[in-house]
């Protein structure tokens, strides 16, 4: 094969050039500081299309004429021009280009340099990654980028909520588009997996690009409104290196919800604090059990990653990595294990005209899910009862019972956890194959073809003991479930690059096709004869896009970017399925102007302005535009003449559904001071989302629901982002740098469907209570509460609220809006300090002005709850402060809406590196650290950071975050 290719090359390139009778020049290109040969350096005769590139030993051979100027160029190095004057051999050395301004920044369907970027794009490379206990990739970005917030739950391997600039939708998705090596991934997960990012090994990631404003994101059109995160994985290299990283972590929960101890509880019950009811003291036990201590545990977790890079058979640059992550959850029995295999092959053909990148990843996730609902049961369970009871027929666990009959009420949480074994086994295969072809004889033109595939298959096996506490004839649960998600991508584009005298142009045009599928089935509870098997499938989602971009650079100072995308989605009807998303951006490198060129202080200064329209179609409804009927499942049939008939009910329909559009206007400044030792950006932006995809009322009787998704409403987001990176100390053996970023955000609903309020924020305590509201003129999900009345001593009066509308009745009309869960200001700070072989890094994160509704107190801290149906139940000690009797009197009180501003140190790590240990072991770094170091807050609950999932700003017994001690070693070979 190789011979054939060589012969072909010979004919294609060598033969024609021989005809002109030129001289052959050879030489070696090396890296200046290390003298290591550089492979893949472009060697081109200036102003021609004749060229070659160096081989793996840095050698090149090219035919030249006297007087030709030869240009040597390589990414990350300063280009060098040499004139051919008849030398037989020309060896050159390239020096590394340290200027950040030439740093490559990956953007949609291409790349640019930091200097040429016209949009709000932030590149985070491995040196900048957030350190510490990183299990899933998004945590590498945590606190690192202005405008990006990452909130991770305490559950092992669990997904995070990522938001860029607060999200631009209300009902539609607020998740950013995540692209791995050109493959946009589906944000929905499968049962059996912890989340879409949980199966990705953070160790395989080379860099992130975060695209924030519309001028940068519009190239992704319909999916770009919430920003784009482009993940680039590590690639193969021609020189051999290997690393082995290992890390152990030891986690401990440092805090508990303060409930009564056994002794205190006995005293409390004896005092009979519930008005009008006498609690049966004979139900009290003699034990002292701290149920939270019993269901939480100290955890040991580990990560091992092995990676090798090098050239296979001397011609095929490759990278292989293997990672094993093992994480115990703080809740008894919960566990996450992941094995990742990743292979990257990055060969080049035809003198580098054709680059092929193959990324193939296998991920095996094994989970045991410990029911986090038992955290609530642990707060509730009677502390005077023991864990075990040898006479109990329920596997020896204590249960409230009367003989073998279980009394109504909460059951033993330790038993619930240990008697349940819910396993999830998720296998994911993802990767892409990318062809990047630079045309022979027309190197200005490049064609890129990208094929991507992502498939997750998950099995879930739920089973419980047969001796679970139940009075039902069905003893426990046994269920199997299978789910499968696929994501197929084909995209391709052509790029034309040409430099004229004063103008550089880059024009790109392309096409993208992506299809998502989802299906699954489960067996129902195999122990329940009334339960039934079920199969289900989502309609396919197909997204098709045509896109183009033109970059024009005048005099290297004035930059113009125009982009356009036309997107089609299968979510809307034929009439509405296409949308157009244009954007434009201007930038001016002022520092290149004569008046600043020689400034010692200002090393770079760029002004940017951008405007663009992006779209949104990611709603749950995938086929609501169609005229559909749905048959009832086995439990939802009708009967005629006592014979079952499957009823068919027409489904809600909206044939007019169309794109939500977000227009973003942005002004920004990128600055660099004192030779770029201080650099950063300042951005001002405003986003207006119109035709919001919004679930709102339809006139009753005209549809098959009372509320359907429609295009109604407008949301406005205004914000300021500021970042500064500073090299405070930069000496040979001592460096200090830090990054600080700040985001000010204001989200306001401008318009809602027909001006009506929409209740959101379901809370526990009662069936279907809502605590939040969407209202015109306010932030989304503002808290809608009663205004608490206080007595002269300043204590809240139970059930007494201000009659705000003065009609002498306290009802819904007296609720007012108090604050919202969104932070007004988000701050991030991280610093790295290196002294000789020591390295120290830490980060800090703060949210200011975010409020939380304390649902733990509101639904639990009332005396009547000492009675838990037929048994006794514990309550939070905060009941002593309020003296509240009944949940229903107080649950909507504003007393539970608390300021949850916080400052957190997420991690601090200290390391020491041993260099040149042996011939094979180049270096060894030992490090240790602490994760979740401290939190400073006035919030009375366990953790002020509760915003995971849909119930933003509602603290309803979260999975607590452990403080973790970390120790690790990195070996480099």
């Amino acid at each position, binding site marked *: 094969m190789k011979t054939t290719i060589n012969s072909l090359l010979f004919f294609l390139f060598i033969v024609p050039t021989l005809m002109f009778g030129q001289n052959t020049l050879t030489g070696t290109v090396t890296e200046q500081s290390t003298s290591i040969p550089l492979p893949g350096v472009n060697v081109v005769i200036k102003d021609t299309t004749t060229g070659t590139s160096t081989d793996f030993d840095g050698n090149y051979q090219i035919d030249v004429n006297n007087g030709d100027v030869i240009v040597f160029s390589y990414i990350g190095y300063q280009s060098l021009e040499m004139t051919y004057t008849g030398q037989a051999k020309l060896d050159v050395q390239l020096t590394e280009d340290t200027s950040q301004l030439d740093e490559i920044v990956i953007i949609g369907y291409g790349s640019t340099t930091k200097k040429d970027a016209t949009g709000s794009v932030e590149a985070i490379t491995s040196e900048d990654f957030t350190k510490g206990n990183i299990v899933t990739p998004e945590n590498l970005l945590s606190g690192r980028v202005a405008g990006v917030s990452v909130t991770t739950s305490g559950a092992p391997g669990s997904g995070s909520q990522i938001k860029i600039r607060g999200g631009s939708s209300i009902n539609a998705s607020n998740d950013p588009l995540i692209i791995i090596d050109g493959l946009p991934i589906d944000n929905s997960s499968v049962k059996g997996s912890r989340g879409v990012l949980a199966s990705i090994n953070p160790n395989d990631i080379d860099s992130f690009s975060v695209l924030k404003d519309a001028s940068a994101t519009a190239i992704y059109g319909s999916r770009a409104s919430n920003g784009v995160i482009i993940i680039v994985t590590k690639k193969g290299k021609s020189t051999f290196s290997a690393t082995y990283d290992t890390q152990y972590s030891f986690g401990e929960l440092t805090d508990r919800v303060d409930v009564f101890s056994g002794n205190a509880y006995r005293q409390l019950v004896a005092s009979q604090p519930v008005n009008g009811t006498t609690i049966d003291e004979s139900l009290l036990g003699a034990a002292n059990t701290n149920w939270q201590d019993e269901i939480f545990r100290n955890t040991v977790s580990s990560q091992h990653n092995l990676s090798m890079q090098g050239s296979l058979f001397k011609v095929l640059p490759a990278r292989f990595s293997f990672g094993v992550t093992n994480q115990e959850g703080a809740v008894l029995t919960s566990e996450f294990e992941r094995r990742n295999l990743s292979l990257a092959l990055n060969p080049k053909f035809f003198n580098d005209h054709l680059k092929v990148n193959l990324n193939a990843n296998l991920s095996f996730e094994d989970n045991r899910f410990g029911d986090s609902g038992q955290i609530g049961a642990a707060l509730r369970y009677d502390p005077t009862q023991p864990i075990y009871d040898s006479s109990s027929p329920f596997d020896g666990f204590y249960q409230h019972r009367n003989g073998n009959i279980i009394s109504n009420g909460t059951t033993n949480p330790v038993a619930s956890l240990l008697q349940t074994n819910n396993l999830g086994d998720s296998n994911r295969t993802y990767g892409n194959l990318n062809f990047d072809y630079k045309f022979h004889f027309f190197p200005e033109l490049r064609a890129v073809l990208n094929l991507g595939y992502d498939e997750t298959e998950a099995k879930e096996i739920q089973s419980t003991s047969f001796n679970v506490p139940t009075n039902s004839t069905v003893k426990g649960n046994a269920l199997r479930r299978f789910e499968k998600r696929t994501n197929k991508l084909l995209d391709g584009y052509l790029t034309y690059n040409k430099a004229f005298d004063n103008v550089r142009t880059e024009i790109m045009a392309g096409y993208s*096709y992506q299809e998502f599928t989802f299906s699954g089935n489960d067996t129902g509870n195999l122990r329940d004869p009334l339960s039934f098997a079920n199969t289900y499938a989502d309609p396919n989602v197909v997204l098709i896009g045509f896109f183009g971009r033109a970059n024009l650079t005048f005099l290297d100072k004035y930059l113009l970017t125009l982009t356009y995308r036309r997107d089609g989605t299968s979510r809307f009807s034929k009439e509405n399925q296409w949308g157009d998303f244009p954007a434009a951006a201007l930038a001016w490198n002022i520092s290149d102007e004569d008046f600043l060129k020689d400034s010692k202080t200002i090393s770079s200064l760029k002004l940017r302005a951008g405007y663009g329209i992006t779209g949104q179609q990611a709603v749950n409804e995938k086929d609501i535009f169609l005229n559909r009927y749905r048959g009832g499942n086995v439990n939802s049939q009708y009967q005629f003449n006592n014979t079952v008939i499957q009823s068919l009910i027409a489904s809600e329909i909206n044939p007019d559904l169309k794109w939500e559009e977000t227009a973003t206007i942005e002004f920004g400044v990128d600055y660099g001071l004192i030779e770029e030792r201080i650099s950063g950006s300042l951005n001002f932006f405003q986003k207006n989302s119109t035709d919001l995809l919004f679930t709102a009322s339809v*006139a009753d009787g005209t549809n098959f629901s009372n509320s359907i998704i429609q295009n109604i409403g407008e949301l406005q987001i205004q914000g300021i982002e500021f970042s500064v990176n500073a090299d405070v100390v930069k000496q040979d053996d001592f460096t200090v740098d830090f990054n600080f970023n700040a985001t000010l955000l204001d989200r306001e609903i401008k318009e809602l469907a027909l001006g009506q309020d929409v209740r959101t924020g379901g809370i526990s305590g009662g069936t279907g209570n809502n605590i939040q509201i969407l209202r015109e003129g306010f932030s989304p999900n503002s808290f809608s509460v009663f205004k608490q009345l206080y007595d002269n001593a300043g204590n809240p009066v139970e059930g007494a609220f201000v009659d705000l509308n003065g009609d002498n009745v306290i009802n819904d009309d007296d609720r007012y809006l108090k604050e919202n869960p969104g932070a007004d200001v988000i701050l991030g700070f991280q610093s790295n300090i290196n002294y000789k072989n020591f390295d120290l890094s830490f980060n800090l994160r703060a949210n200011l002005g975010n409020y939380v509704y304390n649902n733990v107190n509101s639904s639990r801290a009332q005396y009547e709850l000492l009675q838990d149906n037929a048994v006794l139940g514990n309550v939070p000690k905060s009941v002593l402060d309020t003296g509240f009797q009944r949940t229903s009197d107080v649950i909507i009180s504003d007393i539970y809406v608390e300021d949850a501003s916080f400052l957190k140190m997420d991690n601090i790590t200290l390391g020491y590196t041993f260099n040149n240990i042996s011939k094979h072991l180049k270096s060894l770094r030992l490090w240790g650290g602490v994760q979740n170091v401290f939190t400073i807050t006035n919030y009375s609950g366990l953790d002020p950071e509760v915003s995971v999932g849909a119930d933003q700003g509602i603290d309803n017994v979260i999975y607590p975050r452990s403080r973790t001690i970390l120790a690790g070693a990195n070996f480099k070979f």
Partner: protein
Amino acid sequence: MKTRFKIYKTIGLIGLFIVAFTSCTDDLNITPNDDQTTLSEDLFKDEAAYKQVLAGVYANLALTGTDGAGNSNLKNIDAGTSQFGRVLLYVQTLSADQMIWSYENDPGTREIQRNLWTAQNPLLLGMFSRAHLSIALANNFLRETTDEKLDARDVSASVRGEMPAYRAEARLMRAMAYYYMMDIFGKANFADEATPINSQPDVYERAELFSFIESELLAIDADLINAKQNEYGRADKAVAYMVLAKMYLNAQVYIGTDRNADCLSYCEKIIAGGYALATNYLHNFMADNNTNSAINEIIFPIISDGFTTQNFGPTTVMINGSVGSIEVNGAEVGVGDGGWGGALRVRKQFVELFDGSFADDTRNTIISEGRPIDINDISDKDSGYIIQKYSNATSTGGFGVDQTFVDTDFPLFRLADVYLMYAEAHLRGGGGDLTTAVGYVNALRTRANNPNTITSGDLTLDFILDERSRELHWEAHRRQDLIRYNKFTGGNYNWAWKGNGSNGISLPAHFNVYPIPTASMAANPNLTQNTGY
């Protein structure tokens, strides 16, 4: 050579893209993949679908959605709570003097049972939206079964033969939904089969609704199947007569006109349909009331089945809910021991209707031992009496298949009601015969094993109101009855917690109709709020 090579490559690549484009943009036109979902264009290829779609119209009274009891095709109300019979029970019974719901943090319940409701009440939204969904589903059925469409689909003669009855039943279900809207809200969005999807329809007030319902029910009479001749679960002529009789009885409230004679004549028509009282009063409220002697009494049920037709409807709620917090007597009625921990109790004024002479009356299922009669604190589930009227046990000593979802059908209309309506219409000057009226009342008493029969002198309007409560309590009639007697609002009759006073206080007159839900009003600007709200 160089140029050609380039051109070929370029053309080839562009060609590849074009092929990809044209073949793939059609992929945007997707169809559902789930086996429960069918496109309407495919559905009617199977002629069995017509009856299944009709079943869907009926099912809207029993089910909240297609995927289990916790699933709803309505939004902004708790899924299980959006069941038709459930919200009807809340607006007609919980709002009056028979019932108390202990868990007032269930949204809307506090405001309904203390008569504090506002237009934001989610239960009222559930009522308004659920009934209008019946209208939309019936309209849809009528649109899909026009002669034109049946011709186009070449529907077989046997199915076409069924079609007049099917269509008449759909119109009956629609008229019944409008009847409830007329009674509860005093107005409705008027949508028929010609009303476009997602439009903002006209609004009919009580008078327009009255004449529409009346004309519809008269018009479909010929097509409806004779009383007791249709399949159980489907409606027949008697159901239409029942709606008419109830409209006529309450005509004074709705349109200010006395129609008692019409009421009485339709009661006679129903009785002539061949109905008979169940041998045991309680058979009407048991798990096998679809097969025991109650099938002769129940005119129209809302179906419930512990396996095939699960719902959080009125029977599931009342059977689980009336299990006592002290008594823990769920096993007796075929649900979990603790049931729902004492969710439902009765108010004092209801208890007082059963004096000593009703000690052995089978309609008296009150459990009072160890309980104070007064409910001073609604959340105290040990105060106030409980009853055991509905049950998931069968008349033969068995139980329903499930311990939460009961098999007991909800008797929306039954013969005992017709007897009492006859007597009342007679007293209100609707004609008929006094002896017959007294006979009907005494038939109910005899059936209830109550030896204290009445004489014609005992038969007064006030007596009938009380007897209706004894016979028909917790069957979603009470608010309507009290309004007809002018005892719901005002201070003529105050019951515990009326107007949010533990001993009851007067209610303003505008509470005779409920407010139009805010969300419904916002979605149709033609709807205006009822006076006083």
